[in-house]
């Protein structure tokens, strides 16, 4: 089959040991390269842009606190997308589910203004989860009962949810809207939550290198554990883990520590990640949902109810995204701000987070933090001297490069005419190829 440029894929028969490391690194470099080309064409220096991005997003004064601030909602929307996409339920309604969560949580937060903080926090999370459940149930039920594509219905509901919260603040005298003063009537805004409805946070001294150290150790440990379990290269794994720990410990002294605020929402999100991981990995529900997603025919023969699984997965995903909205109100905003929420497009970025984490719940927090830092840096860059939009370009390029990288980890891209199809002929042809090169 002649293809453009004569490109085709060939399954790798052996996977070299360096490949699992080279693929993510290569994907990231490819994305940076694509963005670099765009930057050069439009007259910006990619190296200075990237170094500014890095310091603004990760190492600069206060960067880690902002990274957590943007990373926390992304942790929720990313986990929501990962929980659904992993089961082949394409919920792109995280955006709207987050709005509904923010709406429900701020409503409850306002209503319970005088109660102790603990009560309010729990009530806000519960209200948001309920809101997200109901909102996500719409596309879930439609998919389960009439087979309507959840992709489009969940997306359309994002616009509806955005218009709903805009209506509450800008075009009505709703419970959420602040009508107490003349200026508030002229310039619509939401009521601010009372002080004891603000979620508590702790702050610690951390240096960026320490965080890197923790991440490297975690990654190396995960990789080592997997290698250990599959009885491959057990010793090699331990050696790599040790080297990683020593190398990053050396790095840890390089950057000064700064005071970092850890919001409560981030902790809640971490617990949610672990809960989803356990639910999908260790329970009967998770197993059955995986079968429904990966092999619907097998699920049918095994008597697994597809409808219930579809609705359940959609609802779980919606609840997680909505709790992200509650954290957005309780941890950071303290007021329902439709414009602010819609400008951040946290739900869509959540899909990027999930895709980069390869839909693994435990990969989500790390990727959410990295993308949180990147998003902050991108927004701080833009202004009169720098165009906006770099954030989306970088995010999109990262996902596309990761998709390509995942495939190229299992297949190699060859040029020239592909061998004849029959299995015996493939063996022969590759033998011929080895001698003569592709014909």
């Amino acid at each position, binding site marked *: 089959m002649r293809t453009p440029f004569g490109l085709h894929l060939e399954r790798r028969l052996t996977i070299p040991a360096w490949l699992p490391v080279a693929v993510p690194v290569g994907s990231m470099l490819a994305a940076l390269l694509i963005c670099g080309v*765009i930057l050069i064409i439009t007259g910006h220096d990619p190296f200075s842009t990237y170094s500014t991005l890095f310091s603004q997003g990760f190492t600069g004064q206060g960067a880690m606190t902002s990274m957590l601030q943007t990373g926390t909602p992304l942790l929720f929307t990313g986990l929501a997308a990962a929980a659904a996409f992993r089961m082949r339920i394409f919920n792109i309604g995280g955006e709207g589910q987050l709005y509904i969560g923010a709406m429900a949580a701020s409503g409850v937060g306002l209503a319970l203004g005088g109660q102790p903080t603990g009560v309010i926090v729990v009530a806000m999370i519960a209200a948001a989860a309920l809101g997200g459940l109901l909102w996500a149930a719409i596309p879930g039920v439609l998919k389960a009962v009439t*087979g*309507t594509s959840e992709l489009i219905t969940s997306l*359309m*509901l994002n616009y509806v949810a955005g218009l709903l919260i805009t209506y509450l603040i800008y075009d009505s005298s709703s419970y959420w809207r602040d009508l107490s003063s003349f200026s508030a009537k002229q310039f619509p805004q939401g009521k601010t939550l009372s002080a004891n409805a603000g979620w508590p946070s702790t702050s610690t001294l951390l240096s960026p290198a320490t965080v890197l150290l923790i991440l490297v150790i975690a990654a190396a440990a995960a990789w080592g554990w997997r290698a250990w379990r599959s009885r491959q290269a057990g010793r090699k794994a331990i050696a790599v883990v040790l080297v990683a720990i020593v190398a990053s410990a050396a790095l840890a002294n390089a950057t000064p520590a700064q005071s970092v605020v850890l919001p409560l929402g981030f902790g809640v999100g971490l617990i949610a990640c672990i809960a989803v991981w356990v639910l999908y990995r260790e329970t009967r529900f998770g197993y059955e949902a995986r079968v429904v997603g990966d092999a619907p025919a097998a699920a049918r023969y095994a008597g697994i109810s597809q409808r219930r699984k579809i609705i359940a997965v959609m609802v779980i995903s919606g609840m997680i995204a909505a709790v992200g909205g509650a954290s957005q109100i309780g941890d950071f905003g303290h007021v329902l701000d439709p414009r602010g929420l819609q400008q951040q497009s946290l739900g869509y970025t959540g899909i990027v987070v999930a895709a980069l984490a390869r839909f693994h719940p435990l990969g989500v927090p790390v990727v959410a933090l990295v993308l949180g830092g990147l998003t902050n840096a991108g927004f701080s860059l833009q202004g009169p001297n720098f165009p906006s939009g770099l954030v*989306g370009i970088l*995010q999109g390029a990262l996902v596309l490069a990761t*998709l390509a990288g995942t495939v190229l980890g299992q297949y190699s891209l060859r040029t020239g005419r592909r061998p004849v*199809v029959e299995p015996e002929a493939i063996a022969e042809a590759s033998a011929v190829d080895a001698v003569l090169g592709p014909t």
Partner: protein
Amino acid sequence: MNRGIVVVTLASAVFYGTPLLFAALGELLAERSGVLNLGVEGMMLVGAVCGFWTVERLSGPSPLVLLVAILVAALAGAAIALIHAFIVVTLRANQIVSGLALTIFAGATGLSTYLGDVGNLGGKPAAHAFHSIDVLGLAGAPVLGPVLFHQNVLVYISWVLVALVSFYLFRTRQGLHLRAVGESPAAADSLGINVTRQRYVHTLAGGALAGVGGAYFSLALTPSWLPGMTGGAGWIAVALVIFAFWQPALTLVGAYFFGALSSLGFNLQSRGVNLPPEVFSALPYVLTIVVLVAVTSGWTKRRVGAPAALGIPYVREDR
């Protein structure tokens, strides 16, 4: 009579539905070859910004500038579609994730907004724009005049395009090959049809039409550039292909139905119907869901018209 609400709504249905029609016809071609491209919104926005940029920077007689602008928008849309084609046809990656990534890469938070800022295009009226023309002097004719004979050139081009795509799909050998690839790539391959080439060509054609649909926004609908100005039209176009059962002629009907919906808000408001503006703005999105449910359930449960191989990569070795 021609100012009555029915005529005004019909005329604006055509006016507002045309960008959806271009984008949906493009998506239809891609999906007929088996490639689901969810990047329509991104490709439309890049088309919109590139078309507008061309009009801003090029001086010359208006028709010529506009022609070049449309070609540039089509090329830009096709260039973005090429990324998707490479990822999903050559590399056989997941089409849904790739399409979503494409929209983020090119869409309101990405490349289109970046280019708009680089070219300093925001907030200006277009130097040249498509205006409605009086065809055969019939613009004043009762009812049909404003609806059919007082539209811009792109509207008439879109009608020709519907006829061409219909003819191409159902009356030519090439169209038969395209449908074969979308239904059963293995069978098509064994007949010597180049599956990869068909998928590349039609994904690129789809991107080009999405680009033109985007340029309609920035050069005809509201002749100016605003980041994210398509406001979900690309997604409605994806939904339209499903409503239309992958038939070009039905795509036209569906596009005008949604055109009517998106203009109904202004028309009712200008007549003193007093409802919050958000209700009218939400109408197209809510009705997209309602119509989609109606189409996918009940009398058409068999997914009439959906290409059997839609969304599935073709692996020759698995044949």
